[in-house]
């Protein structure tokens, strides 16, 4: 029996080499990607845990600018049982224009906050690329990985910082793997210098403190956060906690792993479709033989087994090979993780889970072929022997006759007619074209969305020309007012609106007070797109970010209680907006600013003149402010994400074109082999090759165009929903694709049409040699 099966498998594989190879490759790639993707997720998780462990990450960090009484903090945390360790570290934030990293170009255009620190004493260590605590001597500096990657730095490169009178030169001796500020989406970076150098750099910039805590029990984090916020301890600045750090570190690679797994599933789907196509084709070819086997008394089950073993063999070998290749490619998958987060010690799970994932791919294929092979039961011995073929028209053809068509070119008509009458045959191609279009359009649309000027509205900010951030310092209130006066007198300022973000207490759903940063100001000037409702206009109105509304379980029109100037006040929720900044949990209210608890000040403005010149003017006239062009800001913070997305878009384009070409060519070759005698008849009676080819191109392009239309609709609806669902984790629950008509509706369809047409023409080459001798060969 085994010998017989071996022979059948061998013969069949040889007979249908091309399509069998394709199925093999799809199953293999699917197994490879799912094994690679799952391995990536495990690596990511292990590496993050290892990094958090080695760097002894902080559980809660309060940034603060301004005066600080260390004694008070020390006393408070000593009394707290939940606190395991605490630490106050000072950072010096130096303006980018004074900083030159390995070259003569300063970092004046950067949107990053460039901070200089000493290595921490007790926890929150900054590590080198070997996950060891960084030590720097005098004159040495450790530079964040972000710059290693962006500027392609090497150890030994130089960096200089220009002071008013003196210039400081450093040699780069390490790169900083920084658990707190690693991810490129965090717009703050820490450089590590020696304690002596730190003192010298102090006068060059603004001091900012990080008051960090490690707790005995992480579960008490929320409670601790609330307790801290109720104290009079320093709070002028944002807070970060352990969960947020984990998410920020995981988000980029996690999304990529998810996309890889998704692509694997799509490839698996294509493999299954191809498999269904081959099984049905084989059944049709072997229809008479199967009938004869049945007629001479061989049980269906036995015949079915012979076919089944073939697919079992392919599924298992292809998945196994995919898994083996994935081991070889692991380094590539985990490259970004290895650089930013580091490597964790190997474990058995890293081998086992990807193997199981690859096995699941094989299992899918096996179960699917069993389902398709159920058709065996339907074959009747008598009919099979008598007819020899089942015939493959799905609809009565007389309703769609050539002689009734009045104007359409005959070849085109026959092509269209064939697709409609034998639609089941074209299902594989149709679904592959839908998937292909979907896989290209979604990333292209998302890329356009994220690059569009309107994406800023997902960051909880109304669109404006310039944003001025005023750093915490002495007399900030005074300076804030001066700047406002300046803007009022500036004729080129069309409109502006100041916002002050202060901390308020909010009564949560459990009736407990919780601290919340609320941005105050007039939100009608720079309008934000609200998911629901609109801007808070009255004193008792508030708008919540999507994630905050989710957390408090509040809807527009409901009320929540807020403590304002020590008195509880009921606030009506007027709007819910999307915000991916500050962990996605923010609020806006049009109430009087509380300068005493203000954490930061910003002013949005629109101008009539040249934006760059205006920014330069303000930079010269205002001290200690950060002036950003929102577009520029966005470009830089999301540069890494956009780069990754561009790479992903380009890769998906290449993969899709390869798949489309492969499947189209397989399909057309199989179809022409099936239609061989019909094509030979057409040639014999004088129908030109040109007309025959036109018929086949029509078939492919008709199916392609339907696929493109449906694929585009699905991408713009379902695709948008999928992206929104993925991004709701970070606070943007309703992404509206910005569609580039030129790219999505012209270039991509044309590209697909071009490749499909060329592939069809190439695949039709074999019909050139068909002759009268092929007429009677089925």
């Amino acid at each position, binding site marked *: 029996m085994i010998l017989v099966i071996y022979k059948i498998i061998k013969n069949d594989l040889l007979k249908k080499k091309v399509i069998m190879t394709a199925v093999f490759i799809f199953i293999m790639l699917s197994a490879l990607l799912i094994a690679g993707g799952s391995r990536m997720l495990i690596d990511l998780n292990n590496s993050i845990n290892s990094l958090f462990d080695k760097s002894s990450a902080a559980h809660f960090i309060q940034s603060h600018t301004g005066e600080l009484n260390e004694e008070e903090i020390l006393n408070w945390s000593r009394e707290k049982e939940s606190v395991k360790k605490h630490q106050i570290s000072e950072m010096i934030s130096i303006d980018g224009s004074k900083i030159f990293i390995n070259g003569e170009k300063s970092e004046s255009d950067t949107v990053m906050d460039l901070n200089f620190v000493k290595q921490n004493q007790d926890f929150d260590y900054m590590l080198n690329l070997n996950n060891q605590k960084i030590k720097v001597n005098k004159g040495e500096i450790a530079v964040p990985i972000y710059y290693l990657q962006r500027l392609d730095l090497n150890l030994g490169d130089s960096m200089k910082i220009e002071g008013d009178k003196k210039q400081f030169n450093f040699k780069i001796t390490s790169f900083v793997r920084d658990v707190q500020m690693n991810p490129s989406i965090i717009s703050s970076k820490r450089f590590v210098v020696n304690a002596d150098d730190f003192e010298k750099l102090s006068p060059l910039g603004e001091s900012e403190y990080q008051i960090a805590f490690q707790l005995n029990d992480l579960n008490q984090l929320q409670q601790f956060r609330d307790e801290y916020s109720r104290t009079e301890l320093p709070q002028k600045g944002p807070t970060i906690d352990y969960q947020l750090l984990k998410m920020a570190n995981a988000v980029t690679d996690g999304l990529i792993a998810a996309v890889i797994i998704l692509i694997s599933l799509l490839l698996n789907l294509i493999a299954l479709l191809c498999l269904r196509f081959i099984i049905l084709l084989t059944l049709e070819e072997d229809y008479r033989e199967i009938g004869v086997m049945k007629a001479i008394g061989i049980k269906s089950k036995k015949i079915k087994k012979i076919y089944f073993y073939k697919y079992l063999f392919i599924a298992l070998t292809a998945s196994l090979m995919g898994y083996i290749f994935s081991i070889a490619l692991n380094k590539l998958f985990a490259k970004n993780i290895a650089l930013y987060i580091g490597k964790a010690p190997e474990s058995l799970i890293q081998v086992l889970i990807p193997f199981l994932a690859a096995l699941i791919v094989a299992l899918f294929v096996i179960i699917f072929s069993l389902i398709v092979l159920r058709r065996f039961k339907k074959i009747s011995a008598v009919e099979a022997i008598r007819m020899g073929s089942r*015939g493959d*028209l799905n609809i*009565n*053809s*007389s309703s769609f*006759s*050539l*002689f009734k*068509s*009045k104007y359409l070119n*005959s*070849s085109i008509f026959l092509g269209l007619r*064939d697709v409609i*009458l*034998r639609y089941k045959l074209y299902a594989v191609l149709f679904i592959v074209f839908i998937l292909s279009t979907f896989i290209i359009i979604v990333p292209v649309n998302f890329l356009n969305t994220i690059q569009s000027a309107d994406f800023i509205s997902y960051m909880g900010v109304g669109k404006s020309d310039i944003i001025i951030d005023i750093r915490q310092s002495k007399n900030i209130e005074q300076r804030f007012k001066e700047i406002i006066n300046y803007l009022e007198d500036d004729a080129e300022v069309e409109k502006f609106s100041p916002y002050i973000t202060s901390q308020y207490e909010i009564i949560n759903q459990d009736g407990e007070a919780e601290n919340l940063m609320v941005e105050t100001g007039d939100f009608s000037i720079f309008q934000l797109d609200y998911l629901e409702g609109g801007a808070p206009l009255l004193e008792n109105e508030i708008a919540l970010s999507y994630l905050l509304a989710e957390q408090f379980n509040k809807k527009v029109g409901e009320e929540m209680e807020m403590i304002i100037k020590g008195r509880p006040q009921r606030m009506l929720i007027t709007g819910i907006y999307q915000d991916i900044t500050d962990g996605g949990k923010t609020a806006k209210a049009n109430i009087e600013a509380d300068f005493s608890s203000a954490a930061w000040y910003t002013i949005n403005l629109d101008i009539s003149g040249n934006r760059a010149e205006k920014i330069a003017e303000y930079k010269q006239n205002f001290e200690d402010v950060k002036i950003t062009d929102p577009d520029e800001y966005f470009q830089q913070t999301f540069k890494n994400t956009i780069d990754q997305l561009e790479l992903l878009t380009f890769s998906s384009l290449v993969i899709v074109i390869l798949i489309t070409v492969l499947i189209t060519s397989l399909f057309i070759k199989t179809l022409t082999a099936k239609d061989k*005698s*019909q094509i030979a*008849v*057409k*040639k*014999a*009676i*004088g*129908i*030109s*090759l*040109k*007309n025959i080819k036109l018929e086949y191109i029509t078939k492919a392009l008709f199916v392609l165009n339907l696929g493109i239309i449906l694929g585009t609709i699905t991408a713009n609806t379902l695709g948008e929903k999928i992206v929104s669902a993925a991004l709701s984790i970070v606070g943007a629950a309703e992404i509206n694709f910005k569609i580039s008509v030129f790219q999505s509706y012209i270039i991509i369809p044309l590209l697909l049409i071009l490749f499909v047409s060329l592939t069809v023409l190439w695949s039709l080459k074999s019909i*050139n040699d068909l*002759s*009268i001798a092929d*007429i*009677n060969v089925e």
Partner: protein
Amino acid sequence: MENILEAKNLSKTYLLNRRQHHILKNLNLKVKKGEFLAVMGPSGSGKSTLLYNISGMDKMTAGEVVFANEKLSQLNEDQLSAIRLKKMGFVFQQINLLKNLGIMDNIIISAFMAGDEKRDEISKRAHELMKKTGIIELTENEITQVSGGQLQRAAICRALINQPQILFADEPTGALNSSAAEDVMSVLQKINQEGTTIMMVTHDVKVAAHSERILYMIDGNIEGEYNLDKFKENSELKERESSLSRWLLNMGF
């Protein structure tokens, strides 16, 4: 009478298992306009190969075929297709209608593809041909719904739709029972009488007896020629058959 087709020193050689097989050997042949020519001979003598080569369906190895004043060896694939489409008609033993088209579509497809006439006129002519061949009631039928004889008559309609100068028939009755075969032959007879030149390959003496000139092929060459009068009535068929049989017997058939 004027020649419509002439083959000069026509040779066809196949390479099979690294050995050359000479199927046609310097064959010479003339087909006169309006005649009904039959080619007979034992299996493997090269009858069908001759038909495929002089119709440009297959490429000759050497020699020349002149059809309607054109040298086929000098034409490219597209030009040959155009000649087959517009000036030649074909009827095959296995009928070879297109599987996924209905009867009517099979008949009109060549004319629609040629695109030289209005579609209404083509349909009108198709109806006339169907009436002439006795299958007018099959206009809306699928090819799976009719008998073998009817299918072959539909194939004849297809061959005639572009009003060809010559009709090639390769064993047109080979797959039919005797009564269907007779029907088909009487149709061909009628067409010939109306002026269409027919060149037919056949094994069957009864079928060949419908023609006016019979060529006998042996081993890739024409070894004999037998002339009959133009066929007039069915009553004389028996007599024609027996005289042809006697000649064939002499030829070693």
